[in-house]
């Protein structure tokens, strides 16, 4: 397995402005990370641990303060947006809230078409094909996002991510706003798509049960740091860090 992503010393601080002063919040504290081609890397942690920020920084939706992001031997940390745009198609993101991640004024089919290249007819056919793959029928191509249920919207968001034929997808808690019965469908879909398109996932979740089910390797984040990282079975069977132990204990108590 080759290395797809390499992240060195990644640091990010946010400024929160209040009436008095600027408060600096450290979201990421010198993170080092490698993602191998074809794996599912799970990233677990509680709210405010910086896992979502890490996901966004890796694909440069947020710029880091310090550190290096290397994608397939290319240092993309400082690439200007204009140049980066070439690579953007290779890595996509799926957000937590399917109600916010689709433009409310664009029919879902057209949203999917945006990422596809080619002439209009090809793009349309490809979009229909992809939507079919996730179980959205062609007759709903021109429907607006608000006409779909949460689960269907998440499927559409997945389709949009697939439309650029990426090799890597950041999945940012993609099932945590969905019902249990829908969650199962979406998780299956992720597995199927991974096999079909040879994808690599960075799967972010606070739900350790899902992480254990899905991930090959796991990183546990706590207050902006990765406190422990390793093969999934090893981490879950023999957690070393006290925080990991506590987290696993409270997750699997029931």
């Amino acid at each position: 397995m080759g290395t797809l992503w390499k992240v060195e010393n990644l640091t990010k601080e946010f400024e929160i402005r209040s009436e008095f002063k600027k408060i600096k919040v450290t979201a990421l504290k010198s993170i080092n990370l490698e993602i191998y081609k074809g794996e599912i890397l799970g990233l677990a942690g509680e709210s405010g641990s910086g896992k979502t920020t890490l996901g966004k920084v890796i694909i440069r939706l947020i710029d880091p303060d310090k550190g290096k992001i290397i994608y397939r031997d290319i240092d993309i940390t400082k690439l200007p947006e204009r140049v980066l745009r070439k690579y953007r198609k290779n890595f996509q993101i799926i957000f937590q809230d399917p109600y916010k991640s689709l433009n409310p004024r664009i029919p879902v089919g057209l949203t999917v078409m945006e990422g596809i290249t080619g002439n209009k007819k090809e793009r349309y056919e490809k979009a229909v094909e992809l939507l079919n793959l996730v179980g959205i029928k062609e007759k709903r191509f021109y429907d607006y996002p608000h006409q779909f249920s949460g689960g269907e919207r998440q499927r559409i968001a997945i389709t949009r991510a697939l439309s650029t034929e990426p090799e890597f997808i950041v999945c940012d808690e993609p099932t945590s706003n969905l019902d249990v019965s829908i969650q199962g469908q979406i998780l299956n879909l992720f597995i199927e798509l991974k096999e079909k398109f040879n994808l690599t996932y960075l799967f972010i979740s606070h739900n350790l049960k899902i992480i254990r089910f899905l991930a090959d390797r796991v990183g546990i984040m706590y207050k902006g740091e990765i406190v422990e990282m390793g093969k999934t079975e090893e981490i879950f069977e023999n957690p070393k860090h006290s925080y990991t132990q506590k987290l696993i204990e409270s997750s699997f108590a029931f």
Partner: protein
Amino acid sequence: MKKTLQRLRKRNYISYISFWIIVFLYFLAILADFIAPYPFNKQFRDYPLCPPTKIHFFDHNKKFHLRPFVYEVKLVNPALNQYEIVKERICPVYFFVKGEKKKILGIFPSTRNLFGTKEGKIFLFGTDMHGRDIFSRILYGARISLSIGIIGVSISFFLGFLIGGISGYFGGKIDNILMRLVEIFMMFPAFYLMLALRAVFPLNLSSFQIYLLIVIILSLIGWAGLARIIRGMVLSIKEEEYVLAAKSLGLSSFRIIFKHIIPNTFSYSITAITLSIPGYILGESTLSLLGLGIQEPYPSWGNMLSVCIGNLRVLSNAPWMLIPGLFIFLTIICFNFLGDGLRDVFDPKNW
């Protein structure tokens, strides 16, 4: 547009009606030359402060006339402006009656008016102290009062969109500086700022210069509020996940701005524009009312009311002089209703 109107009709009938009233008012303003029975500056020296002419179908003998008519009136007491009708003089009202020469819309020469009388006078809303027909003056005044609303809001909206957009999209220091500037403008009471800006220029300007000046003053005052609204909007939409997703699809900034950000500000800005037009109409009326705006003999709804200030005799003897105020009120309430309705309709939650 059609779809919006249909939705408006379904969800909020009052705003739907308001929309058509506004359209009708603009229609009246555009065709003022044709609809008004008299030119705006035509003085009937024998008819100062003449009350509104009543239109009759029955004469004093209870005889029915198919064609409506008016009685001729005569000033009987010049000191108290008392008028009496002359019962013998029945003047029928005709459509497409011959009047003075003019150019409709400034292009088509014509001598016809929509309605009028061949003998006698018809003053639907009465006359002012110089014997000018208030109805005709209201129609001509509508041109100024209504157009300033649209032109003023367009200019401030352009400024507001530019500055608010830049401020919101780029953020950081630029945002900081621009927003301080906006705050400074908003920290002056609008009325004082309006008068102060007016004070910079001489009082006696040509009517066209004054028109321009009013537009500029009102836009200078109005842009700040709109810039703030648009900045907030851009700021929040910029952070929306669908914009981030579009960015990660590798779309160009141009496409992101014009396909994903701006369309999502549209509904909100149209509402904001609609709701801010009354401010411009009020601004113009206020300036003209105080004698700082449109000057006689040119009518605007504001300056037609200026005789009512501090002139109790006129107010109590000739209350029809207040009619231009009713038109201002009607226009403003319609824009307010329309704005509220649009806010409802544009909310994707209500689709």
